């Protein structure tokens, strides 16, 4: 059912997008949410479910790809996504009927709302990750065999490109290289597909889920009450409440073309005495408890301030701080053989199979 989103919804979406971003600094989300709420004063954005579209309607993913410039240091100036949609329409000779998020968290979880406000296109309550991954090839659409291209890009300086590549991994390599030369980020439109394909291979309820998470976390209730509500709604489990004891940068070698440096955080659960180890690269990829795997990508791991129940960013991880380490399952597609091939720890350079692969 179609919904007109309100500025309050955007406020909650901001919190939910941060929670699911697994501890990334939320400032870019805040900057963008503020701009969207400002724009909503005289325009509205419509959230629809994918089955409200005709099966053959053309839908596209919108999202930022970054490699070398923080979005919060230079937010898009405003013509990038509309320019990319025009480029795709020109290339395919068809009008885009609706847009969806490239990822269901972080900045890409919120960007489609601004694009919807600018273009008057409805925003579909679906996405191709169900969380955020660093690579554009790490999508459920890719698992489902949906073509990633053509991909339209516009960079920091206003320069544009269209990439045609059949193989998603090759598209990732080309886009990443282009993004570097385009100034450090690019607005992109990709995975042009039919509404039917998105319905079959996407993850659904993404935007409304972020809004609901935000409603829970923004409520004036205790940290424990928020955790219990998240547990009811998402099946969130608490791996540990632990104190940060050591932070290590560049803790693992990386040569896979993945953005950002790997780092590690060691915590101590002072109730049980267990040692918790977080392996991080953009997101928290792996959680070990006394050396045993407690969560591994594509599981989502996020951190909550144990006192206030607010989302803790990696920047908040200082030696001595106490945080709740939470785990929630990713979309079911990610636990298929093809899904694990794309997104288990080995895909991030950690030589480890996901427990579900080993144990069926």
């Amino acid at each position, binding site marked *: 059912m179609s919904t007109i989103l309100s500025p309050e919804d955007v406020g909650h979406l901001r919190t939910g997008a941060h929670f699911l971003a697994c501890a990334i600094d939320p*400032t870019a989300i805040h900057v963008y949410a503020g701009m969207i709420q400002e724009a909503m004063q005289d325009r509205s954005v419509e959230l629809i479910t994918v089955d409200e579209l005709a099966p053959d309607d053309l839908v596209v993913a919108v999202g930022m790809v970054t490699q070398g*410039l923080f979005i*919060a240091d230079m937010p898009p100036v405003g013509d990038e996504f509309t320019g990319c949609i025009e480029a795709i329409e020109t290339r395919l000779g068809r009008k885009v009927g609706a847009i969806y998020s490239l990822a269901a968290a972080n900045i890409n979880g919120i960007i489609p709302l601004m694009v919807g406000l600018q273009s008057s296109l409805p925003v579909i309550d679906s996405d191709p990750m169900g969380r955020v991954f660093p690579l554009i090839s790490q999508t459920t659409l890719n698992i489902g065999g949906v073509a990633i291209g053509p991909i339209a890009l516009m960079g*920091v300086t206003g320069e544009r490109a269209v990439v045609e590549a059949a193989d998603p991994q090759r598209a990732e390599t080309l886009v990443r290289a282009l993004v570097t030369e385009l100034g450090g980020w690019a607005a992109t439109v990709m995975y042009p597909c039919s509404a039917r394909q998105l319905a079959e291979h996407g993850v659904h309820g993404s935007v409304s889920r972020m809004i609901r998470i935000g409603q829970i976390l923004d409520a004036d209730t205790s940290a424990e009450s928020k955790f219990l509500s998240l547990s009811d709604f998402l099946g969130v489990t608490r791996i540990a409440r632990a104190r940060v004891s050591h*932070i290590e940068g560049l803790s693992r070698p990386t040569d896979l073309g993945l953005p950002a440096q790997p780092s590690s955080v060691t915590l101590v659960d002072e109730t049980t005495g267990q040692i918790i180890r977080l392996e991080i690269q953009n997101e928290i990829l792996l959680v070990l408890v006394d050396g045993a795997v407690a969560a591994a990508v594509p599981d989502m791991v996020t951190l909550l301030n144990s006192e*206030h129940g607010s989302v803790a960013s990696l920047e908040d991880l200082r030696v001595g701080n*106490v945080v709740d380490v939470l785990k929630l399952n990713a979309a079911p597609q990610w636990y298929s053989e093809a899904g694990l091939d794309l997104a288990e720890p080995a895909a991030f350079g950690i030589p480890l199979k996901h427990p579900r692969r080993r144990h069926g």
Partner: protein
Amino acid sequence: MRVGLMLQGSSCRALVLEGRSVVSVAEQRQAGSLADALDSVLSSLRLQFGSLITDVTADVGRVLAAAQPGDVMAVHISPRPPADQFHNTRLPASIEPAVTRTVHVRGGHDLRGRPLAPLGLNEFLLELPSILSGGMRNVAITAVGSTASAEHETRIADAILSNNSDMRISISSDFYSSVFRDRDYTAVLNSALMESGEELAAMLEETGKRHFPAAALSYARNDGGRAPLARLAVAPVHALRPEPAMAILGAATLGGLCDGEVVVCTDEGVSVGTIRSGLPVAHSLIRQGYEASLATNAAIVEPYTANHPVRPDIPSVVVDIRSSQDTPPEHGLLPTLPGVPHLSLIGCAATPLTAWIDRLERVSGQAELQRVQHRAEEEAGSAVVQLGASPTDTRIIESNVFAMPYGNPGIVRIRVRAAGGTSSSEENPLAGQALGATA
């Protein structure tokens, strides 16, 4: 002996500290002007203690907060200006009216320090006469990517100064944040307060030197450290909110706490901060909800809640400074120190000189990371010596490396804090314990 001063309106209050002992507390002195109040307080201290006073540190945060911000011209350097009204970021309402003109200049850098666009210097020079003819003296310059390269900001600043050397210029690369609007806000606010900072520095210098010609004169900073008065004229924003840090440091000083937790019970509620190596743990931003953050190192002081983890193995100081202590403090807290009403003044008197290195570095592996981190530690130590610290009494308080999520592989943020004293016998009474703790 060391003096802590608190300036507010046209009044001044002082406290004298010797080691960890308060030897004198001057009542708040009200006068016809702030300068008269300061003169009166220092005159009284000179009669009591004369040349025994070695350091005077002033908290000017309340004066700066009450000052009328000067008008500012903002210069934004980026590859392209916003294309529509939706894509403008806004400054907090309290400072937005101070920006009377915004000029866009093409330029900016990426995270690797590579230019995103050539600097539009010639176009700016064409506009400069009209900028200078308006009588505006305060300028804030913010460039995309200036955490990686300050070149475009400094070239625009040089262009302005070479045409009018009296301009007060604040460049955003002096304040660490990877967010444009945070640096813009901080540079604008800093620029708007520079005139007040100059006046305060001149007043403190003149009055302080008249009464205590041999003493080191400083101002208190938001991170719990201090810096020489000359820095107040160029970076007043770091002096805007020192009180929470100084209160934490003051309680830690009284309690002899070098590493641990400080809990302060006031009429407004209970707050908690952490002391590490003799100084309050600090964040590089003062967050203001969803608005732009102030890019200044400031002590982390949070509300103490019922969920606060109580750690018997972590030393703590609990101070009750409520106006009435007829009822016990909230959360079953038991004060470990008698109620002391002048915690922040004690902090001001005890605070050491501090300096930060906070920047991006390119590294290719662990060995290089260690090299750049070591270099940053040496530079932080040198910076605190340049502020006046004795080379033999300088120590690294923290040295951290942060990976940059979704940044460029090979780029890390290095953040180092150094502290030092001007005379090893009298400086920060917690410093010796800090050294002992790490030895």
